[in-house]
């Protein structure tokens, strides 16, 4: 039992152990809810909710009414769970802390100015969410959820993601790649 508690408290698990846990969660999502895991979809539902509150006319379209309906959906609750899951993990290893610029390698790649990181994460968020929309899902909703059902879409997405991701890292890191 002590061994088990120590394992749970470790800051980083073997990726095989953490992946197996996610695999079980993936099975349970299908068995208990007949749904798939996802993350980018929940952002669309929340965006629709905010949009309809601020400017009902411009958000009264097919997308926010039918494709990704505005409101607190299953995907939104899943996102809330992911947030608290990250928190639980951080508390379990004693690493929870309000912080910014905590990544040493980021500083060697981009410098230590916080505004650069904030700008990059904001712009990155926009690009990732838009790309997920076009692809039909993100790393969770398409790569993992589609891949586990053996959907070709997932493997096309993964291939594209790794190809451009590796090329981008090559450009950012140059000689240090």
């Amino acid at each position: 039992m002590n061994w088990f508690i120590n394992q749970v408290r470790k800051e980083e698990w073997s990726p095989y152990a953490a992946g197996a846990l996610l695999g079980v969660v993936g099975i349970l999502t299908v068995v208990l809810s007949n749904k798939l895991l996802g993350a980018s979809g929940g952002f669309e539902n929340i965006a629709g909710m905010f949009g309809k509150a601020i400017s009902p006319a411009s958000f009264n379209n097919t997308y926010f009414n039918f494709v990704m309906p505005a409101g607190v959906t299953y995907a939104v609750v899943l996102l809330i769970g992911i947030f608290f899951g990250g928190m639980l993990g951080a508390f379990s290893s004693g690493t929870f802390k309000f912080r910014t610029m905590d990544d040493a390698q980021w500083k060697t790649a981009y410098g230590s100015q916080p505004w650069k990181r904030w700008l990059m994460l904001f712009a990155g968020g926009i690009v990732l969410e838009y790309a997920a929309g076009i692809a039909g899902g993100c790393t969770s909703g398409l790569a993992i959820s589609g891949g586990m059902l053996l959907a070709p879409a997932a493997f096309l997405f993964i291939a594209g993601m790794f190809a451009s991701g590796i090329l981008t890292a090559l450009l950012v890191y140059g000689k240090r790649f």
Partner: protein
Amino acid sequence: MNEYFVALILGVFFGFALNKAGLTRYTKIVNQFRLTDMAVLKFMMTALVVTMLGVYPLRALGLITFPTVPATYILGNVVGGLVFGVGMSLAGFCPGTCVAGAGEGKLDYIVPGLLGFLTGAILYGLTYQWVFPPIAKIANYGNVVIPDLWNVNPFLAVFVFAGMALVLFYLIDRMGMQRKHT
């Protein structure tokens, strides 16, 4: 059981797994693309194999049906993936890991990260009707899975995939496919 309660609990375990795998850190994500740390690939492949070993037999036993399978429309899946990879490699996160990292207290994930995803969601939702239908029309195979598309036995497909994953893990861990840290 209440559907939302189930979603909350499953989400907690999902976020917990992302945290324990270390995927909520920029270094972990970008080093996958530098091929100096293969944890992201191992994590994803393990999850895929475990889940398919569960859901395919359960479906064959008639205990479950598959939820709507993510649609295959080749151009959109690939182009979306290509753009996604650029963003993920530059910023070092994706929608799920940003939310889990936000829960860990990372202020740069909580403020610009979450706001970025919401902004992207608004932009996509407002332009969807012009952008998505033309792309989704090209090479669209619908909500299909590989065993049906290629007309192979689903269990054969699952075992081949699992075998490929094991060979990949072996190559990474034993044959030194992972590049050395510099």
